[in-house]
């Protein structure tokens, strides 16, 4: 009796973590290829180098912002305020650029401001014991409100010559610096997720918060770290977006709320936490960016695009739920 209990068939125990991940990576990659092929046939302008440069420029901000909030979602929480942090950091940065002599020193300032805003989110979430959904929905409104007051409701251009080079310059030909930044940050963040204590704790807290707490992991502290990282990268994304656009306007970061969630979830990071990771978010961002760009080129109206994207998010969650039938979506 005992013997049968403890000896599962060898074939079943052969499935290891790495092959399980590989299997679920297939679908998003297939979607990228499928979308690429579809738009190449449907439009003349999709498969061109000029369009590649345009897409990667547009996707840069999205990628950087998503990479941070992937950690929050991986922990089983959610950060709805990244778009608002981008707007607030962007607005503040433009004013600082125009009224101080910071110059390129604005970069660390913007990152720090973003990290601070994120840490505030995290602290309220953790110490107030309020669902992160509610906290960041609230701060979404607060941050946007402050930003719009700073901008007085209009777009403000920065006057620093050459600052836009950090975003639209091309260190590597045809690849805008903002996309290059995104890729470098991606590599860095994947390393953090896979090889560091912070990364491991992120998975553990997302997979079993009670288990982690019971084993003495400082869950609350690491939750704040995750929100701070999410804010920090939103800040970096914000300043680079401003550099790319030459100005900060009221609509900055507006589409990031849905797009970032969509990209993370489509990439395969589970909203329940503990499954996925930033390495997958790159693919999710590619899907969303190609979808955006391709639909634009095909002349699909903005309103129809909203419908498509919303549907994609829901479909992605449905598909990912099938893979992990036991996970409870919080």
């Amino acid at each position, binding site marked *: 009796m005992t013997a049968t209990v*403890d000896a599962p068939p060898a074939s079943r*125990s052969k*499935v290891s973590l*790495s092959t399980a991940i590989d299997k679920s990576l297939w679908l998003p990659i297939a979607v990228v290829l499928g979308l690429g092929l579809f738009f190449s046939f449907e439009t003349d302008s999709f498969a061109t180098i000029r369009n590649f440069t345009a897409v990667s420029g547009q996707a840069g901000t999205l990628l950087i912002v998503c990479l941070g909030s992937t950690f929050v979602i991986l922990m089983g929480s959610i950060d709805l305020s990244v778009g608002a942090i981008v707007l607030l950091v962007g607005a503040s940065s433009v004013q600082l650029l125009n009224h101080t002599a910071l110059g390129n020193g604005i970069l660390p300032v913007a990152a720090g401001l973003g990290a601070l805003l994120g840490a505030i989110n995290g602290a309220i979430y953790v110490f107030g014991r309020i669902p992160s959904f509610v906290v960041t929905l609230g701060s979404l409104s607060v941050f946007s409100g402050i930003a719009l007051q700073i901008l007085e409701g209009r777009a403000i251009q920065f006057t620093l010559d050459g600052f836009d080079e950090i975003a639209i310059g091309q260190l590597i030909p045809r690849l805008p610096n903002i996309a290059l930044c995104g890729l470098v940050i991606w590599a860095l963040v994947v390393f953090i997720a896979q090889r560091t*204590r912070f990364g491991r704790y992120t998975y553990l807290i997302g997979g079993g918060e009670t288990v982690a707490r019971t084993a003495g992991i400082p869950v609350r502290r690491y939750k704040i770290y995750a929100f701070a990282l999410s804010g920090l990268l939103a800040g970096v994304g914000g300043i680079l977006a401003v550099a790319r656009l030459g100005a900060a306007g009221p609509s900055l970061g507006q589409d990031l709320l849905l797009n970032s969630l969509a990209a993370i979830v489509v990439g395969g990071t589970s909203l329940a936490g503990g499954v996925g990771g930033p390495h997958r978010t790159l693919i999710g961002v590619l899907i969303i960016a190609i979808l955006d760009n391709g639909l634009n080129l095909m002349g699909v109206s903005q309103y129809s695009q909203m419908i498509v994207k919303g549907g994609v998010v829901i479909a992605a969650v449905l598909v990912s739920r099938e893979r992990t039938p036991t996970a409870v979506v919080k």
Partner: protein
Amino acid sequence: MIQTPPSGPGAVPLLFQAEGLTKQYEVTTVLDRVGFEVPHNKIVSFVGENGAGKSTLFNILSGVVQADAGTMLLHGRPYHPTGYGPAAASGVTRVFQEQSLVGNVPVYENLLLGHDHRFARAGQFIDRKAMIAAAEALVEAAGIDVDVRRRTADYDFSKRQSIEIARACLAPLHLGGIAHPLVLLDEPTSALDRRDEEAFFTLIAKLKLVGSLLFVSHRLTEVLAVSDIIYVLKDGELVERLTPAEADENLLHSLMVGRTRAADYYHERRQRDVADAPIALKVAGLSNHGAYEDIDLEIHAGEVIGIGGLLDSGKSALGKGIAGVDPVTAGTVALGGRSAVRPDIGRFVRQGLGYVPAERLTEGMIAPFSLAWNLSLASGADLFTNAFGLWRRKREVETAARYIKELAIRSGRPEVICTRLSGGNQQKVVLARWLCRDPKVLVLDNPTRGVDAGAKEEIYRLIRNLTDLGVAILLITDELLELVGLSNRILIMQYGRIVAEIAAPADDKPGEREIVAWMLPQGTSDALESYTAAVGLAGHAH
């Protein structure tokens, strides 16, 4: 092996009959071809160790889970409930081990839950007066002292248990129009105080006149006193069918564990004399209002302190409090020679404490993650990261491989997902998480719950190995034999307070009866007597 009485053509049809019930979870068979019969107007008991399959059996009977194979007949008709609702509608009701009452509604709503539609007037409006009257009739029949208009949560645990028992026992009869109910009682008395227990025994005596009851209890005296038929379950199989006249506690016990209790099962000879050993853990005035109050205890290095008590005794909450998992309202804990502080699990883990929770799958391990990840989980701050916060993956895999070998974790590899391991091997992973840290103090809450007999034995040996190394162990357990066999001293808790300290030296272990007597609120034996008097079964009470 099991003889069942012949039920010839002239016999009254049985109230309930099951044949070949089988249930498997993953690779574990929890019920293996279980068949039994419940005649009319009888109390049928199931006894067995934790994990023997009693709860699964009740789950199948009450429709909560479905059997993989087997048939059930209720009143001679096929019975395959798809949920608890359908089961209750056909006259099978149950008192669950965990209370299933809604706290913030009046008692009468709980009593009549699921029967609301009988009180609906003109479709939607509910006849409150009729409901209250019906509920009062129920309470009176059950003989419990409860105002049905009061909020359910205002009553203490024992009263709420009585309410739940009254609902399960009487609602089908009074409201459901069921003439011959079958009531499943899962450890119903463990939470009752004396007066409610008397009422309970009177109630089941009354109920026996119309229906039958299935009864699960760890209190073998109670089982022997109330049952007409006793089935013994072991490792998912029915091993014996007895009448109380044929059985006594010792016989039941040896059937349950499948062997007479060998003296070295708990390695009692290896129990250490710790009088001179330094104190490894000192708890002073620890309180958490509502759970436990003013707890003082000391554990020497190499000593095992057992804590026993009923479900509501607060012993599990105390374990969490001492380890610092849940906050306390007052008191301190000191590890080794360090100063006394408010317990905090993060700090204590760094200082050499380990805590194994009772709920393995929700608190003990992240089963969808790999063995290595679960093993290294508590050591991310020191063992498995370097000065830059980088994870030492090679060391992690090596450590996992070492403990897989040392603890004989079957079908274990560092990268195997823990859902694929059996309960016993999962528990070994949780233990290895602390072993790799060379702990000084371990708080173990039911370390062998849901663990098969083989792994259990290995865990006992492991505990002795640890005490040899001078590890102090706080053992919180529901299993009496384990409590007696492993502990140097036994502390008994009732309602959040330590009521007794019983020495348990290797050569002079206290008896189970003595321990149980301390665990129960005073006067339970009186309640049993009042029951036997009520049904005229005086011959069965010893």
